[in-house]
């Protein structure tokens, strides 16, 4: 199967710090691909490189046949890449509905002048956008919050709204930055179901950064483990969890771990 997103020898330096070094991988259509690694491993940096918020120093990123290495960040969404942020970046003073409608920006209709007079076709397009947004609201059970301003919503719901906004783009690849951070067990459970549904029903590939290993094992097809900006292991969740390099990255060297085990009574 050909890759949807392929990252080739990607690297970025901030001054003397090589935050990401020579990372290569690809994400296939309808795949859930997870990046794991200790704090500061460069996972979010990698996500920011792909969504073009950072400019890579080396390497190339290709999405669906387009080279996006030098593309403006605002053009990525039009190609079909949507993302969420680790520290929720919603439009605070707008309602849930307005936030989701902004997610339809890449599929907007009409130019400035048509918007100024609000022509018939713009009105039609607004209705169509609303219909699509309502589908997403139903998909993620947000009916109750439709007209609430973001500033008044609990954290868990905001996370879902951000996911919903990304889905409103009708993307082919969804980048999720720690989707379960700050969620309780129940909300994390819902998230796991939604991730499955997003892949199965909407046919969207997901590239996510995640720390919760039970969630990772449950939803991921493949996992890339990183440490100090470099690749440690790549494979199925079970393969990666058993990889000595991954255990070392999280817990320390093998004999140190063994020493810990022996010390236990």
């Amino acid at each position, binding site marked *: 199967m050909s890759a949807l997103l392929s990252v080739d020898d990607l690297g970025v330096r901030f001054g003397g710090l090589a935050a990401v070094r020579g990372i290569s991988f690809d994400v296939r259509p309808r795949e859930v691909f997870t990046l794991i690694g200790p704090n500061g491993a460069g996972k979010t940096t990698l996500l920011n490189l792909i969504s073009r918020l950072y400019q890579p120093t080396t390497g190339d990123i290709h999405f669906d046949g387009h080279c996006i290495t030098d593309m403006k960040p605002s053009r990525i969404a039009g190609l079909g890449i949507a993302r969420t942020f680790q520290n929720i970046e919603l439009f605070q003073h707008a309602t849930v509905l307005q936030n989701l409608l902004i997610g339809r920006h890449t599929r907007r209709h009409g130019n400035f002048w048509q*918007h100024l007079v609000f022509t018939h076709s713009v009105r039609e397009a607004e209705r169509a956008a609303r219909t699509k947004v309502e589908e997403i609201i139903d998909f993620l059970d947000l009916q109750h919050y439709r007209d609430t301003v973001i500033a*008044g919503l609990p*954290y868990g719901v905001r996370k879902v709204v951000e996911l919903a906004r990304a889905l409103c783009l009708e993307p082919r690849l969804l980048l999720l930055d720690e989707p379960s951070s700050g969620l309780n067990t129940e909300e994390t459970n819902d998230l796991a179901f939604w991730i499955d549904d997003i892949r199965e029903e909407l046919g969207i590939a997901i590239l996510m950064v995640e720390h919760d290993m039970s969630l990772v094992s449950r939803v991921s097809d493949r996992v890339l483990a990183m440490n100090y900006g470099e690749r440690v292991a790549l494979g199925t969740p079970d393969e990666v969890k058993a990889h000595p390099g991954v255990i070392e990255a999280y817990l320390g060297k093998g004999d140190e771990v063994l020493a810990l085990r022996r010390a236990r009574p």
Partner: protein
Amino acid sequence: MRFLFKTSYDQDIRLARHSGHVLWYGLLLAFLSAAPLVLPNYWSSLITMAMIYGIVGLGLMLLSGYTGLYSIGHAAFMGVGAYMQAVLTAKGWPFPLALAASMAASAVVGAVVGLPALRVRGIYLAIATLAFAFIVQEALVRWESVTGGNHGLAVGGIDLFGWETGSPLVFYYICLLLSVLATLGILNLLRSPTGRAFVAIRDSEISAQSMGIDLAHYKTLSFAVSAALAGLGGALSAHLLRFITPDQFGIVQSIDLLLIVTIGGLGSVHGAFFGSIFLILTPQVIALAKDYLPPAIGQTVGLQSVLYGLVLMAFVLFEPTGIYGRWVKLRTWFELAPLYRKGHAKRQRTFQKTERLA
């Protein structure tokens, strides 16, 4: 209290959300249409002023209240519009064409001034616009062959394709028509993808970008539209005042405009008009009050500036959402009475990252 049952998406797209809107805005329009025929001339000229400043305020509201870009040089765009109008009408251009040209000229200047907005934000952008305003004012003073320099420029009456009139009544209706059109245009923009893109940029540039919003395009557009409205207001005020000088479009005027949007209530279309009414009425009220105050206070030079300053400080401290915010609270009070409680309008402020640690 009114309960809205939503049965179609059009209810959220329509400008008048319910029958109450139709009634009240209809009454307002009827009042404004009848006002110059009923009220004394003095009052209808005050309303004309308020409408002109309302148009300029709308422009600044779009820029500051909805796109989150602050400008302390907005009077310069008014100046560009006013001088363009004066020069073109003197050359014999009919009023509507000259007006369109003035708006276009201001829009172009606005787009150019918007360029620093692509790089700097907040107070730095405000300083850049301030510097620009000084440049424009200086240019108006020095370019004597066109602008007449400090001697100013006389502006003629309104020439509607050969039918010339200096009647304040006609001018009133022209201002009314244009301010209604400007308001409708802004409301249309705000309910369409363009307006949502502005709001997105105001609230989070980084996620606006990730949603596919081209920051450079929309910031420039916001500046251009805002400047075009300021230019329109400037051109109209040139006709109203009949005589323009560069110092009318200086820093004081810019601050007045900033007062309009801040006191009116940032982020509301109503606010632009509330603010301009405040700006027009306050000097009148102060003038009236002077006679009743002790002479030591009433005759003080600069009383008006001091009062303005106090009012502005009071608003920033006690009602950051401006007159419009106060109005919304009052309306909610009436709708909910006797259930209204003091904390009703309070937003949860500390509901972000630290909240989960508490």
